[in-house]
C-alpha cells in the first residue's frame, strides 16, 4: 500500500488525478477502522492532514466555508455561534477523542446514512465544495448523497470544504441512540428555521438509504407559518401543527429493521424528535423576535 503525503492541495489533486483509487484519509476515524478490520485494503492512502488550507475556515458572503479537514472539536469551539445546528450535531459525534480527529469532510466522504452532520447540512442548505485538477464545483447537499455510503464525487475529486449559511435563526439537531453518549444514530433529525425566506428546513438521518430532506414536512410547516403570519409575529405553535409536522417527518423516512432498532420505532421516534425540536426552535425564535 502506498502512502501519499501531499503538502498542498494542488499536489493532492494531482495525486488523486493520477491515482483515482487512492483513498483519502483525514481524521482516519472511519478509514482506520476499515483497515483494522480488514474490510478494505486500498492500493494507496492519500493523507490530507498536512494540507493547511483544508484545516482552516473563513466567513464570506453570508456563509462559512469550513475546510474539509477541520475537526469537530474546532467546529464546536469556534463556530457554535454562527452555525448552531452543525455545532450541535458535532457535539453528539463519538467521544472527545473522535471529535478531536474526525472531520465533516470525512463524514461526507463516508456518506453513511447514520452520519451525524448530514441532516444538519441538508436542513441548513449547505453545499459541498469538490475539487479536482479539472476545477472546483459546489454540490448542494441535497444532491450529494446517492445511496448507502455512495456520494456524488467523481473519482478524481476531493472534498475541499463545506459551505454552510451563517444564521442567527434557531437550528436543532437530535439523535436517538441506545446509550447516552458515543452512540451511532438509530435515527436522527435536524430542523433549521429560515425566517428571511419564510422557510423551514428539515431532514432525517439513519432512516433511509441516504440522509434525506423531509420535503412534505418542510412545505407543510413553511406554508402554515407563512399563512398565519407567524414569521413576523410568532405565536406558540399549536399541538396539532407540531404533530402534523412530526407525522410528515416520519413519512419521509423509509427505514429498515436492524440491530440498532426496528423500522417502526425509527418512524415513531422521528415523529417525536421532529415535534420536540420544532418546539424548541420555535420557542427560541419567538423569544428572539419578541
Amino acid at each position, binding site marked *: 500500500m502506498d502512502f501519499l503525503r501531499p503538502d498542498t492541495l494542488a499536489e493532492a489533486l494531482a495525486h488523486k488525478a493520477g491515482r483515482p483509487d487512492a483513498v483519502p484519509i483525514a481524521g482516519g476515524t472511519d478509514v482506520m477502522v476499515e483497515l483494522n478490520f480488514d474490510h478494505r485494503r486500498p492500493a494507496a492512502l492519500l493523507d490530507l492532514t498536512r494540507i493547511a488550507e483544508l484545516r482552516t475556515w473563513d466567513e464570506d458572503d453570508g456563509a462559512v466555508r469550513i475546510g474539509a479537514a477541520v475537526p469537530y472539536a474546532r467546529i464546536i469551539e469556534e463556530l457554535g455561534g454562527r452555525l448552531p445546528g452543525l455545532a450541535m450535531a458535532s457535539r453528539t459525534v463519538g467521544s472527545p477523542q473522535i471529535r478531536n480527529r474526525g472531520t465533516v469532510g470525512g463524514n461526507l466522504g463516508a456518506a453513511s446514512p447514520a452520519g451525524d452532520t448530514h441532516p444538519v447540512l441538508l436542513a441548513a442548505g449547505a453545499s459541498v465544495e469538490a475539487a479536482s485538477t479539472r476545477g472546483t464545483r459546489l454540490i448542494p447537499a441535497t444532491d450529494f448523497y446517492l445511496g448507502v455510503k455512495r456520494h456524488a464525487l467523481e473519482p478524481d475529486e476531493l472534498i475541499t470544504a463545506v459551505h454552510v449559511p451563517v444564521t442567527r435563526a434557531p437550528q436543532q439537531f437530535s439523535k436517538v441512540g441506545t*446509550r447516552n453518549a458515543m452512540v451511532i444514530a438509530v435515527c436522527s433529525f435536524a430542523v433549521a428555521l429560515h425566517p428571511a425566506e419564510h422557510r423551514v428546513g428539515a431532514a432525517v438521518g439513519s432512516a433511509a438509504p441516504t440522509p434525506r430532506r423531509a420535503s412534505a414536512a418542510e412545505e407543510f410547516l413553511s406554508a402554515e407559518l407563512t399563512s398565519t403570519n407567524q414569521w413576523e409575529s410568532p405565536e406558540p405553535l399549536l399541538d396539532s401543527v407540531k404533530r402534523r409536522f412530526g407525522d410528515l417527518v416520519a413519512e419521509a423516512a423509509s427505514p429498515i429493521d436492524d440491530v440498532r432498532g426496528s423500522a417502526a420505532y425509527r418512524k*415513531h*421516534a422521528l415523529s417525536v424528535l421532529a415535534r420536540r425540536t420544532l418546539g424548541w426552535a420555535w420557542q427560541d425564535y419567538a423569544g428572539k423576535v419578541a
Partner: protein
Amino acid sequence: MSLTPADLTSAVAGGIGASPQRPDGNLKVRGEFAYASDLWHEDMIWGATLRSPHPYARIVSVDLTEALKVPGVHAVLTHEDVPGQNRYGLEHRDQPVLAEDVVRYQGEPVALVGADHPETALRALKRIKVEYDVLTPVVDMETAADERPLHPAGNVVRHVPIRRGDQRAEAEVVVTGRYEVGMQDQAFLGPESGLAVPDEEGGVDLYIATQWLHVDQAQVAVALGLPLERVRLTLSGVGGAFGGREDLSMQVHACLLALRTGKPTKMVYNREESFYGHVHRHPAVLYYEHGADRTGRLVYVKARIFLDGGAYASSTSAVVANAATLGVGPYDVDNVTVDCWGVYTNNPPCGAMRGFGAVQAAFAYESQMDRLAEALGMDPVDVRIVNAMSEGSVMPTGQVVDSAAPVAQLLKLVKDKPMPPLPAAVDLRDMPGGVSNTTHGEGVVRGVGYAVGIKNICFSEGFDDYSTARVRLQVINGEPAASAHTAAAEVGQGLVTIMQQIVRTELGVERVTILPMDTGIGNGGSTSASRQTYVTGGAVRAACAAVREKLVKLAGGRAPVDLVDLLGDDVIDETVEWRHRATERIDPVTGQGNAHVQYGFAAHRAVVDVDVELGLVKVVELDCAQDVGKALNPQAVLGQIQGGSAQGLGLAVMEEIQLADGKVRNPSFTDYLIPTVLDMPPMSIDVLELADPHAPYGVRGVGEPPTISSTPAIVAAIRAATGLALTRVPVRPEHITGT
C-alpha cells in the same frame, strides 16, 4: 515468656484494611503496562484462525493447497495436525481444538495459519477452501432437548431438579411470569492474546492472558499429547476477564503452530474475532410461580429455567446448578420446586460470566417479588423483608446458611438513603438520551426500583477448590523483604495488591514482591466465583504463618528481636496448599446437599428517568449495600461494587449479543454497547463487614453479588416509571414505546 508467631508481626503501612496503591497502577494509568497483546519475541510468526461462517454444517472437504503457496506462510493446520486428543472443555471434553467433520457454531475454528506477518496469515486464510454442507441449526433452548442431537448424549447438558417441602402446597395469592435474559458478553477490553515459544526438547512455554493457568495447562497438554511438565504457562498482562477467559481460546492453537514450525508464535484476536473467540453469558427463559399468604409470606416457589449453553458444554453444568440452587433468591421458602436445564444449541457457546447463573435467576425472582407486592398491595421492599433470609436460614437445598445473611438490613440501608432531587435545570448529561439532545424534560418520568440478590462464593458441589502459595522471607540490602508466588491470575481485580497487603500484615514486612504467576508452582485455582481473595488470600496467609513458625524456631524461644538480626543470611521459604471447607454434590433427584461454601448478598436501589415517548433511560442513581465480611482493601471493594453494578446496568438497558438463526448480528463495540460514564451514575455504597468465621479474615467474596441485584433493580425502576410489565432484558426502546 515464650515467643508466639503473633509476636513476630509489627504493624507496617499498606497491610490489610488499607488501600495501598496497586503495584501495576502507575504503569496502567500511563499506558505502559504490557498486556498480552504487547507480547513480542524475536523471530516470531503470527497465527490466525479460519472460522466457520455457519452455525451448523458438515465439513465436506478442506483444501489447503492455495494457502500453502502464499509466500511467508510457515504452516497451515487442521484437526489432523492435533497430535494429542482433539477435545477440550472445562467440565466435559466435548469441544474440538479444530473442527473435524462438523461445525456446531458460527465462528468455530476450522484451520490455522502461521505466517511471518499477520497480513500474510490473513491472506492465506482466505485461500483455504472449505466446502460445507449447511444444516438447519438448533437455536431454541426450550425445544432443543427434543431436536436433532448435536452431541452423542443428546442436547441436555444438565438438568438440576430441586425438591423441598410440600410439592403440592397452595397459597392465597399466586403470581406467575415468563422472563427472558438476552446473551450478555464479558466485553473485556484486552482481546484474547498469547505467545507460544517452543523449547529445544519438544515442549512449549505459553505466555497467555487467562483466568486459570493450571486448567489451561492440563487441557493444552492433552491436546498436544505432551506430559504436563512440557507445557509451561506464564500469565501475561490480562485486560479484564469476567468469566470470558476461563475456557481455552487460542492456547492450543498457538502451541500447535509453535511446535510445528519451531518458531515462537503469537496470536491476537481483533475485536470482532474476540466476540467469536470466547463464551458468553447464558441467555435464559424462566417460568416462575410464587405463592404467598395475605401477609406476603412466601408459601411456595416453582420455577422452570432454561439456559442456552450453545454448541459446547463449557461450564454449563455449574451454571445450571447455580441457577437452580439460588433460584428462589435470598428468601425463606419452605416449599420449592425448581427444574433447570442447560442445553446444547447451535448458538455461540456460553459459559462463565460474572454472576454465573445467579444473574439470570435473579432477574426472574426479583421481578416476581415486585409482582407479588403489587398483587398484595404491599411495598416492594416490605414484601422482600418479610421473606428475607438470615443467618440460620435453610436454602432450598437443605443447606443451613451458617454465617451472616443480612438481607433485610441491606434492603433497609438502600431504602433509607435520601432520594436524589429532580434536576433543577436542563443539563443534557442528566437526561435520558444524554448529549444526543432528545429531551429537555418532555416525556420524562421518574421511577424507583429495588432488588436484592444472592451468590455462592468459591467453587461448589464437592470441587476440590484450593490454592497454592509460596512465601519467601530474607534480608535484602539490610532490609527484610518478602516475596509471594502463586499461579492465581491477576486479571485486573487487584489480587496482586491483596497478596502484598496480606504478607505485610502477617510478616510485618513492608517490602513485598509479587512474583510472576506461572505453572512453576501448584494450582492457584480459577480467578472466578469471587474466590481469589478468599482462597489464594487464604493460601498466602497460611504460607506466611508457616514462615512465622520457622522464625519462631529460629528465635529459639528468645524474646522478640529485630527481624534483620534474627534472619541474618537465612532464607525462609514456605509453600502451602490451602483449601476451604469441603462441599458436596447435590442429590440428582432432590437437589439436596451442602453445595456451597459461602453466600454473598447485595441490594440495590435504582432511580431512573425514562423518556416514555422515546423509550430512552437515564439511570439517575444506583445505590448499593453489600456485606463483604471484611474489606481487605476498601477501595478495591468499592471498585468491584461499582464495576459489578455497571455490568448489571449494561444487561438491564443495552448489552446483548443479538442472534439470528445462530448468527451473531453485532460482533463489534459499534453495536454491542456497554455503559459509558454518562450511563453509569456515581454510586453511594454502604459496605458491611460482618465477618464470616469460616473464612480467612472473615472475608466474603465481593465481585459478583453487585452484578446480580443491579439489573432487576433498574428494570423495576423502569417498570415503576412506565407501568409496563417488561419481562425481558436488556430493555430496548421498542419495549417501552411498543413499536
